[in-house]
């Protein structure tokens, strides 16, 4: 699995399974809905590296600093500490990458949306700001929409003009052989205060036509790899297909998105490779995990 982000073994607490974020075969007893928040602030440490002055999470948000210290980049891994989001949960994750800092965010396991006791919708809102000259790799494992779940997720990224972003988002509709729940997911990226990318995906019961030929065409995994980099203004990417159901598409700005639909999560990950995009092939862009011998790949299923 090329391109899989690999958290280091020593820093990762393997989450409790069963009711946790792995694709559990049966729904666990449903606890009451919860409201939980987490915050990450990454800032230059004054020695050419990145410090994490704020790394705070509660409930399902167990955040760990991972990776080698002393490098220019700080790595944070979200460890699945309990099953979430369940119906009715309200989760918020706030991230600030201060000017000149570099942050890499990963998760140890897929996020599994499960039904709650009341049938209420769960929400999961991520708010990210990336300052001047700062860099963010946002590479979580997929979001899986389990049958009967109802999740509305929003991700809003505000980039300074010289900020760089590599963001991967993957959604899997239903566990193996299962019909999906209701999933609505909006990703909004603004650069210098102007809209750059704004896409909402909506699937499952209550999303008319989601499985037809205009939206998914029977596929069960969908994702996008978005790269924003001022260097793309000088080295633009050409539009091109990446296999039969994926394409690399330059946006109206120094950004490019690789959008793909696939039969399953594994096929999707094979297509969403940062190496497809020139500026992320350049030195200093996708190094890290793959180059570091202490890292292992944690498979979620």
């Amino acid at each position, binding site marked *: 699995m090329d391109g899989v982000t690999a958290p280091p073994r020593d820093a990762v607490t393997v989450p409790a399974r069963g009711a946790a974020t792995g694709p559990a075969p049966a729904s666990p007893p449903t606890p009451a809905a919860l409201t939980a928040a987490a915050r990450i602030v990454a800032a230059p440490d004054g020695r050419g590296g990145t410090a994490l002055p704020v790394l705070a999470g509660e409930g399902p948000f167990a955040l760990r600093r991972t990776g080698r210290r002393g490098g220019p980049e700080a790595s944070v891994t979200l460890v699945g500490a309990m099953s979430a989001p369940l119906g009715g949960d309200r989760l918020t994750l706030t991230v600030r990458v201060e000017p000149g800092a570099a942050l890499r965010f990963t998760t140890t396991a897929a996020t599994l949306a499960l039904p709650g006791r009341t049938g209420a919708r769960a929400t999961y809102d991520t708010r990210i700001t990336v300052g001047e000259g700062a860099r963010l790799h946002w590479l979580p494992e997929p979001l899986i929409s389990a049958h009967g779940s109802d999740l509305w997720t929003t991700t809003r990224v505000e980039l300074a003009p010289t900020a760089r972003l590599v963001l991967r988002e993957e959604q899997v509709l239903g566990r193996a052989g299962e019909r999906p729940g209701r999933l609505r997911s909006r990703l*909004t990226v603004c650069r210098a205060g102007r809209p750059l990318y*704004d896409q909402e995906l909506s699937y499952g019961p209550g999303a008319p036509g989601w499985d037809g*030929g205009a939206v998914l065409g029977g*596929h069960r995994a969908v994702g996008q790899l978005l790269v924003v980099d001022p260097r793309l203004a000088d080295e633009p990417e050409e539009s091109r297909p990446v296999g039969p159901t994926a*394409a690399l598409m330059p946006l109206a700005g120094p950004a490019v998105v690789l*959008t793909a639909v696939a039969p399953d999560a594994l096929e999707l990950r094979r297509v969403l490779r940062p190496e497809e995009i020139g500026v992320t092939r350049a030195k200093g862009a996708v190094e890290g995990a793959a180059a570091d011998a202490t890292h292992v790949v944690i498979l979620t299923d």
Partner: protein
Amino acid sequence: MAASSLAPLLVLADGRFPAGGHAHSGGAEAAVAAGRIRDVPSLEAFCRGRLHTAGLTSAGLAAAAAAGLDPLLLDEAADARTPSAALRAAARRLGRQMTRAARAAWPSAALDSLAAARPRGAHQPVVLGVAARAAGLRPTDAAYAVAYESVSGPVTAVVRLLGLDPFEATGVLARLAPDVDAVALAAADAAVRALVEGVEALPAASGPLSDVMAEGHAGWPVRLFAS
């Protein structure tokens, strides 16, 4: 709002309005080639998905333009909602054509200044909304025109591409009518919110397979439709 005339809506939404829409299949040509549209049920599923994704998003932009939001902000919002470069180019070509037709039909300072600011064409739904406003139509009317066009285009194209029975094809459009109502009203509601909250209140619904297939289709050496 004062009672408005509906007749201009018939002019604007008429398939014979000379805005170039007949040259576009709304992604249907690529979907037919990939075997995703093969008969009436798969055409209907395609159109329902397109209506609730690209149709809703375009209808929101048109309704907002008709409500008086800054068309240049809406044009930027349309770019952000159209990841496919091929579809952005198609939307601007259609917008330029519609600007010409609309300026002849409903001369207005708003259409003149949009044409001056975007000489190569603004996104077509934005132009349609400005034209609707110039014609004295309401935001809801503009949303209806765009929502309906998002499905009538593919249906008409598939009649030609598959030799589908035109009576059956029209049945698809009739069955989609409640969905067109819902989408147009949702788009108009969002436009009202956008007046207060800004363009982020507008729908951004997208169909990933449509974007991906549009990029491939634009590279075909021979094709019947421009998009």
